[in-house]
């Protein structure tokens, strides 16, 4: 049990995917303009990351390993993740319009993201088992969601404030992200 708790704490705080590992920076900068979209993105990411880490574990374990084709991991993971997400999107679209409204446009966006592939590859690298992989993916997504929502909240206020002209727009956003990253460095050494 402690093992899983540690995985969660580590992925959310200590080794945050965005601020420490610098993965998934494009949605972090791209969809953090509004709190509402950031939340939608966070939900979609949580869903995709958990699903993809599980799927890629299965593919790696039961298809690639027996056939000794581990060197095909990257291309295989991308293929699997894309298909699974696409398929889920179709099913959600048909069965639950409400859920589709929330996740709809974000699902395909997050699919082709480095964080997703990163989770799958890191799982293999660190020799995670099935449940460990699932928790690792989930934790990474939670960490991503946390900073994305925080960042969106900050940006929402920043956009309406009177920033010096030279810093307006993405400049101030990047500075903010940098300061947030510094802040998250403080979590290093949280778990011994």
């Amino acid at each position, binding site marked *: 049990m402690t093992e899983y708790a540690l995985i969660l704490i580590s992925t959310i705080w200590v080794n945050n995917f965005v601020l420490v590992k610098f993965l998934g920076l494009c949605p972090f900068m791209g969809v953090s303009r509004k709190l509402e979209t950031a939340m939608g993105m966070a939900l979609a990411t949580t869903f995709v990351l958990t699903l993809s880490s599980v799927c890629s574990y299965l593919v790696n374990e039961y298809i690639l390993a027996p056939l000794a084709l581990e060197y095909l991991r990257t291309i295989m993971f991308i293929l699997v993740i894309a298909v699974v997400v696409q398929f889920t999107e179709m099913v959600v679209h048909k069965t639950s319009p409400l859920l589709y409204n929330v996740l709809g446009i974000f699902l395909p966006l997050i699919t082709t993201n480095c964080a997703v592939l990163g989770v799958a590859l890191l799982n293999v690298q660190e020799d995670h088992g099935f449940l460990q992989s699932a928790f690792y993916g989930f934790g990474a997504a939670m960490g991503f969601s946390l900073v994305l929502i925080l960042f969106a909240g900050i940006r*929402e*206020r920043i*956009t*309406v*404030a*009177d920033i010096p002209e030279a810093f307006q727009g993405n400049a101030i956003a990047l500075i903010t992200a940098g300061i947030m990253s510094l802040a998250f460095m403080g979590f290093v050494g949280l778990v011994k």
Partner: protein
Amino acid sequence: MSTASPIRRASLPEQLIIPLHQHIGENSEILVTKGERVLKGQPLTVAKAYVSAPIHAPSSGIVTDIAEYPAPHPSGLSTLCIVIKTDGENEWADLEPVSNYRDLSTAELRNIIRHAGIVGLGGAAFPTAVKLNPGPDHPIDTVIINAAECEPYISCDDMLMRERADEVISGIEIILHTLGAKKALIAIENNKPEAAEALQKSLGRTANENIHVVAIPTIYPTGGEKQLIKVLTNKEVPSDGLPIDIGIVVQNVGTTAAIHRAIHFGEPLISRIITVTGNGIKQPQNMDVLIGTSMAEVIQQCGGYTENAKQLIMGGPMMGFSMHTDHLPIIKGCNCLLVETTEQRQGMQTMPCIRCGECTRVCPANLLPQQLYWHASSRNFDQVQDYHLFDCIECGCCAHVCPSHIPLVQYYRFAKTEIWNQERDRKKSDHARVRHDFRQARLDREKRERDERLRKKKEMLEKKKQEESQASTAEIDPKKAAINAALERVKMKKASTTVTPKNTNNLTEEQQKKIDEVDKQRQASKTK
């Protein structure tokens, strides 16, 4: 400073300009025509919509004009007004006082109040009859009579209670009866002991145990509806709700007196008490003024402006609007004319927000004025609403304490009117969409119907043709034969008169041969 002398009745002006739109809600419809003589208290308009109020002639005279005149409104725009040239006779129309209002049903009482054109005299001018009709789903427990002046400087309610306490109490009894409410609380600020005493005396005479006078602390803006309810009952009105949702109706004292006059004397609302005050006025005092009197005239009767008078404000110092001219009529919702000697906030240049949070501390509605300001100034209208812009009562506290002198309230008013405008646009576009879709459907239907008719016609023709051909083979009736013969003749004639094409003249033999060949082929194909 305006309570030193008693309420003075303003003298009858020569001309009264009465705007049609003095209340919240729809305009009423005009009943009179230009040149007509009207009597005092005669209705000039009739309210057709539910949320609306009629206006009445404040004095007898001739209607000289029905046209647009500048309105006492921050925009300075003009509205439709009825102008009456008074004849000085003050001749009343036939009034219908109610001898015993307890015999009447609540609906009848409401109707009288509605036809008397009574609106909330606290300043918002919401039609009172609508407020007195909470509907069966909202039983009213308490009626709160708002005797807390809405703003500093204003004293018209204070003077009214001092001098006409009986009218106020009588009006409250009518309201209690109309609403079927159990008790009424008269909320009076503790800086008005004379008014409280007058009310207590009057209460002692009527011996009504359901009406209580409650003293409340004099802290601006306790006169705000929701703030008053919180102070008195410790209940909070929900953010998007009305006081009736928690079983409370709030009425202004001036309104109660007007209700009293409407029921017991049959008098419509044609005058009101207004405070004329400020350092720019020579003799500040309260005046009983006919609706439609020019502001200039009222100020004249208060001794006129002092030498250093600078700015005329309609309403109080916190929420009032500055007026560009004093040639504007007094309307039902106008409780105060304030003349300031220094320009409002003169020499106080607006500076950037330093995020001190002082505004948040003073906001009586517990809002975040600073966030509202940021989002309003950057036209973030969704966000402004998320921060509950519409709970803002525009009391002006935040702007008053702002060390940067930011005109915060104006930002909120800007955002509110913009949002209303967007809402109107959206409604209009929805409406246009429905109409466009309907037109599209109609055009489609018409096209379908036309096609259908055409098809039917064709079928009919074909049928006829078939029948005809059958008929002609079966029996040739003489008439038809004659027609056919005629047709044949026409054809022959046509054939004979057809112009022979000139390009077949002077042909070579070869060409002629070719033509013959073609003709032959044509003949052959025809016989086939």
